[in-house]
Structures are given as structure tokens and as C-alpha cells.
């Protein structure tokens, strides 16, 4: 019925389709329950949001303490002059961020709600 070339062709097609589907699936996949902290647009650290913890960031100019508890993140302490970050949150999922503008810090969950690209306000 099929000669070996036909079979090779069919296998190739199926293999390519499989790779495409996998690649597409992966690009849409979720990065899981990770809390990301970035400073001046560079990722500083990533934490497992399932683990309750107090994250202390004590750098030359920045001092921030972030509490991770029951999947929620909240800024507990900050050495910034305005303290706006202390009054944000707690945040529970992607698209929500805590921004400490003076310390150039962003706290956010990596998992995004798929249909919301950004939040204004």
C-alpha cells in the first residue's frame, strides 16, 4: 500500500505537526505559582508563592519587606519616602502589581489572567 517514502513523508508531517502543537501549547502555558520581584526592570528573584515567607530585600539604597502569605503578597516595610507601596494590595494574581516607584521595585505574580493585558488606574 504505502512505500517507505510515503511512510517517511507521513511521519514527517505528523512529527512537524506535533512539534508545532507542542511549541504553541508551551508558549500559552502558565508559568505556575511564582512571585517575581524585579528591581529597575531586572528580575531580582522568584519565589514559590505556596510557601509563606517574609522576603527581606536589603540593598545599598533599597529596603523592602514583602510578606507572602496564603498566596497573597503585601509590602510590609519600605524605606521609600512616600510609602504608597505599603498601601497597595495585597495582590493575589498576575496583572496586579505592587510598585515601589522610588525603589524601582515591582512585585507581581507570574501567572496572568489570560484576557487582561494590563490594568489602568
Amino acid at each position, binding site marked *: 500500500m504505502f512505500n517507505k517514502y510515503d511512510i517517511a513523508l*507521513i511521519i514527517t508531517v505528523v512529527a512537524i505537526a506535533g512539534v508545532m502543537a507542542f511549541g504553541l501549547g508551551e508558549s500559552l502555558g502558565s508559568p505556575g505559582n511564582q512571585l517575581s520581584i524585579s528591581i529597575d526592570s531586572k528580575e531580582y528573584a522568584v519565589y514559590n508563592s505556596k510557601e509563606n515567607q517574609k522576603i527581606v530585600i536589603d540593598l545599598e539604597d533599597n529596603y523592602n519587606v514583602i510578606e507572602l502569605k496564603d498566596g497573597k503578597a503585601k509590602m510590609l516595610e519600605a524605606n521609600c519616602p512616600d510609602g504608597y507601596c505599603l498601601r497597595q494590595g495585597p495582590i493575589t494574581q498576575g*496583572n496586579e502589581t505592587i510598585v515601589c516607584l522610588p525603589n524601582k521595585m515591582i512585585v507581581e505574580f507570574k501567572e496572568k489572567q489570560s*484576557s487582561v493585558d494590563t*490594568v489602568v488606574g
Partner: protein
Amino acid sequence: MTLKRVGLLALSLLLFISSVSCEKVRTEYSDSFFGTFDTIISVTAYSKNQSDFDKFKEELESEMFEYSRLYDKYVEFEGINNIKTINNNAGIKPVKVDERIIELLEYSIKTNKKYNGKVNVAFGSVLDVWHNYREDVVSGAVKKLPSLEELEFANQYTNIDNVIINKENSTVFIKDANTSLDVGAVAKGYAVEKIADSLVEKGYSDFLINAGGNVKAVGSPVRKNAKWGIGIQNPEAVKDGSQDKLVEVVYANDISVVTSGVYQRYFTVEGKDYHHIIDPDSLYPGQYYQSISIICEDSALCDYLSTNTFLMEPIKAMEQINSIENVEAIFILANGEIVYSSNIQKYLEE
């Protein structure tokens, strides 16, 4: 089915798959940067690869940087004349400035006349009083509000007719020494609009810029539901975090959403918060709303209207919005009630 047919079928399948994959080849990239317009700029774009996205982000960042320095009223920069340079030369001499300053001032003045509005770019002296108190209270130096006398004194020097724009020579002259410019109500939205236009001219498409409360979304995201989703922050949740974070999600293509809110810049005296949107009649922060979000294609107009309506009482403000074609709004009143403009529904469906 003959072997040839199977072969042809397989080939066409292969071609089909590869053509589909070519369309899907752009992926979503996101990044953010600080250092312009005193806020954080977040950007999402659909690019072919990381280096294309980085190039796009660099172009955006360098344009934001230029506009931000031109429209700055607090800091002067070597080699450029900006809003602060104009203010420093009030009552002294005309200042030669970049055409982007002339255009912004003309746009602001023209738009405010058109809507008989409350956004005066010559309101700098009063806004300065509030700015200084906010800085001092936030830093702990004082714990009080400006007095009405202080504000009324400053308000004597807010006449827009003292701002002389000479387009031919590209100069701006403030005739009165005590009068000063503040373009804070319109500058960011205007800059974002111009920058988005210029990026489109350079061949970029399908990107979203969020400049601290000022969203401009161009084209569409590359995914099944090809609309951008822009969440409107719940003001209550910003302050105590206990409720739903979003009051609504706006879904659209080629759209701008700008929010003015009481929680963006404020300070607290005796347990009461005082925000940064100052009513030119009372000289105190506007009292009617927690936030106003304006939805229309032009980010400059959105920015202007979000401040202007914030200072109008809700019925009149909504009348104004409903009278402008292709402009929609979501008002969150001081008591928490949410009011929508008449044709908003098309934006609330995914």
C-alpha cells in the same frame, strides 16, 4: 486513494501547517522601565523575537525620555529648554523651545476652550502650593494643609492670556513673573499618543503602552480573542486590598484608556486623604469621584477629559462625555456608585 494522492495530501497538509505557523511566529513580550514621567512604563508587544522587541522597547524608551524631559517643570536639563526653563523666565524673556512644547501647549489651550473646561496649563502657581505641601507632608516635615489665603493668593496668577506663544519663532513667554505652566493634566497622554503614532510610522504594530494610568493599545494581540483587555482598577481595592481588584475590563483594538484617580498621588492629614486633581473654583481637590476612566482612540483627548470631567459634577460630566462622538467613560463616584456612558456596552464584551 492512490499513493500519489496520499503524497499530495501530505504535502498540502505540511504547507498548511507551515503557513499557519508563520502567522503564529510572533510572540508576546513584556517589559517595563522607570525614569520617565515620574512613573513606571509597562509595554507589551508581539514581536518576531527578543531582539526585535528590544529594539522596539529602546525606541519607545528614548522617545519617552525626550518628551519627559521637555515637559518637566521641576528639573532643567543641560542643552534643552523645557517647561521649567519657560517658568524660570516668566516676566523676563521669551524662551525658544522644541516644537513639541509649542504643540502641547496649543493642543491643551485649544481643547480646553473647545470643551469650556477646567484644565488650565497656566494653573502652575496653585498646583505648586499643593505639590509642596504634599512633598512636605509625605516626608514628615509638616502635617497640615495649605490655607485658603495661600491658595487664593497663588490663584491671582493663573491667567492663560499671560502665556504668549510665538509659533513662528518657536518661543513661549510668560508675561507675568508669578504665573507658571503646569502641563501635568495632558502631557503624558499627549506624549504617549505622539510616540505611538511615530512607532506605527516606523512599522511597529500590535503593542500596548501603559504609562502609569495612561494606556494606549495599538492593533490587536495575536491570540484567539484578538482584543486587548484593559482592566479598570477598583479604587477601594488599591487602598485596602479586600475587594475585587477590577471593576471592569475594557476590550478593544486601537484604543486608549486613561484613568484619573484619587489614589494616584495623595497625602494624608488627620486621617483624610488629599489627592492631586485640584478644582480651579474651590482650589481644593475635586470631591465628586474616586476615579474616572475615559475610553477613546486618542490618548491625549482621554487624558484631557479624564481630568476635566473629574472636576465637573457627575450629571454634567456625563453629559459632556455622551455629547462627544466615540468617547466613553466609567465614573466611580465618591460613594462607590459606578456610572457608565451611554454606548459603553461594546467595550465590555470580550
